[in-house]
């Protein structure tokens, strides 16, 4: 019996190791980051996802995390920032990983002044890492100044990669929320015109990747802290979906390729692939 038990343990650990395989190339000079959305619950699933991120960080040393909004749910007093953000990701913060947050509909606007979110006291901002420029929008209020700003910022950018992220998805098959079409008709023409490559959003508490829409690859990664199990329906635009557990996404940008790997709360890879950069027209 003991022998059978030992064999089973060995098989189980081999399976677990396989489940936690890194599918990304992990090249030395590439930009590595993670994406989480709708994470700030302070509940066990958020902590579980945080532990997986720490675990993967050991093998895939991502330097930053993009936060797709709903960074904190409910009360947002100083102690809540500790319980819902600092504790779950403490090893990452101590390792020098920087978090760059977008605001979601449950976020207190004062989060823009919380130093670890690196928002610089503004609702929308841009920053660059290597050959990638990130554009962070506030999809709660897409007012005229913000629209003028994003158009100007996209126009000025000559970076190889343009990645936008914000809370409400332009494309989503989530049954609870779905696509934010009113934002899509305003933002997508700008994204197409100025060559945005990839867009990350949250809001629907599932993972989803879409077939390129007008040349842009859209991700929904809104299951960083809570899940709506079975909430996603398949459409003709769907490339991949996962709504059975919480998840986060690892991303590596190297030259003209963006590699991604979506990882579940248990460490299993639920989606992976590559986005090739479109040649500039």
């Amino acid at each position, binding site marked *: 019996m003991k022998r059978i038990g030992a064999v089973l343990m060995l098989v189980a650990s081999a399976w677990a190791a396989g489940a936690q395989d890194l599918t990304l190339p992990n090249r030395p000079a590439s930009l590595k980051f993670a994406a989480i959305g709708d994470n700030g619950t302070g509940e066990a699933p958020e902590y579980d996802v945080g532990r997986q991120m720490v675990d993967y960080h050991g093998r895939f040393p991502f330097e930053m995390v993009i936060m797709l909004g709903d960074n904190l749910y*409910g009360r947002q007093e100083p102690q809540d920032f500790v319980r819902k953000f600092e504790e779950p990701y403490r090893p990452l913060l101590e390792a020098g990983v920087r978090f760059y947050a977008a605001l979601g509909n449950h*976020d*207190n606007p004062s989060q823009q002044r919380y130093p670890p979110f690196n928002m610089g006291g503004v609702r929308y901002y841009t920053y660059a890492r290597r050959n990638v420029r990130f554009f962070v929008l506030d999809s*709660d209020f897409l*007012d005229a100044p913000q629209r003028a700003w994003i158009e100007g910022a996209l126009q000025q950018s000559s970076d190889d990669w343009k990645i936008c992220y914000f809370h409400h998805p332009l494309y989503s098959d989530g049954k609870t*929320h779905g696509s934010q*079409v*009113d934002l*899509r008709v*305003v933002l997508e023409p700008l994204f197409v015109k100025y060559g945005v490559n990839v867009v990350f959003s949250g809001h629907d508490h599932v993972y989803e990747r879409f077939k390129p829409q007008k040349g842009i690859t859209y991700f929904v990664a809104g299951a960083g802290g809570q899940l709506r199990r079975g909430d996603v329906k398949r459409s003709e635009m769907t490339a991949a979906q996962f709504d059975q557990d919480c998840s986060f996404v690892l991303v590596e940008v190297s030259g003209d390729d963006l590699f991604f790997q979506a990882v579940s709360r248990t460490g299993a890879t639920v989606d992976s692939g590559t986005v090739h950069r479109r040649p500039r027209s």
Partner: protein
Amino acid sequence: MNGIKVVNRASRFAVDHFLVVPCGAAVALVWANWGAESYFWFASQLAFAVNHVGMAFFFAMIAQEVLEATMPGGALHTWRRATLPIVGAVGGTIGAIAAYEAFVLAGDERLLLAGWPIVCAIDGGLAYLFVQFLLGKGAARPFVALMAIVSNAIGLIVIGLHQQSAHLRLAGPLLIACGLVVSVALLRLRVRTIWVHIVIGGTMLWWGFWWSGLHPALALVPVVPFLPRSPRGLNLFADPPHGPHDSPRHLEHVLRMPVQIIMLLFALVNAGTVAHGIERGAWAVPVGALVGRPLGMLIAVSVSVALGLRLPHRLGWRELVVIACAASCSFTFGLFFATAVFPIGAVLTEAKVGALSTIAGALLTIAAAWMLGVGRFEGRAHDVPARTRESRA
């Protein structure tokens, strides 16, 4: 020809029964949920023209009605007559704002706090219609009409002052001053053609408002005092068709049909939302309107009566409850206030859903009238204690 007649009769019915906006909203909702991409493209193309230009004519007409109501013989002419509805409106507005903010704070959704002006809105047309349908002619109609005017005026002032613009220019205030001077000059020159006032003075004021950071939908309001006008009676929303307001030299006559078309477009452009999960913002507006407003209004009127003010003739507490419920429907004005307070985005969607859902105030009003046995449900009066019936008389 029969088809045209049917369309004409249907349009006339819709106009006479304040159904233009609800009909437009219904079409917008169906369109947004069946063809979201085409709907939101259409809405985004027309939003500015309708909300910032077209609505200026609507508010000019409202301003004209209010101004005429304050003339001798008008419903608002003496403060004594208008005091109780004004008190009710202020109390209702405070109640609505308090309920809205309390609900938002209870959920720690501080993002929504800025939306409180939305709950100042009362759809005066619908409220008037409900009251007329349930309580018939009498003091109830002008009471609810005055409440709507005062509440919406509070909201408009707040929105006008808090409007943020990316187009601020020093020329703005200067143009407002020039527009006012031109309007006075046109009045002195006895120019009686309404469109001359609107095109010359109104255009200057519109650009002045736009460049000053004020909501340009209110730009024609300062022109109104310089237009021909005549007193407006208690039947504020339903003047006889062949009165002084039917003259081609009267703003109401000139703008009546254009404003109906604008209101249809307004509903089409603003009311379409995709049926998503209902967020807290969508609940906060009806909580403010359906709970806070009736409570605030009834408390304010009760305190005023206790302090010595008297209820209008043939208007009892049971009728007041029905009026308070009728005033909970913010619909058209709620949509407008939502678009003025929040820019395009998810929060605006929540607020719009909330404003649309206040149509439930109609059911609340009918239920209140039925339970209290007033107006059309007078037959149920035997269920009501005799002392309450006496107080109504």
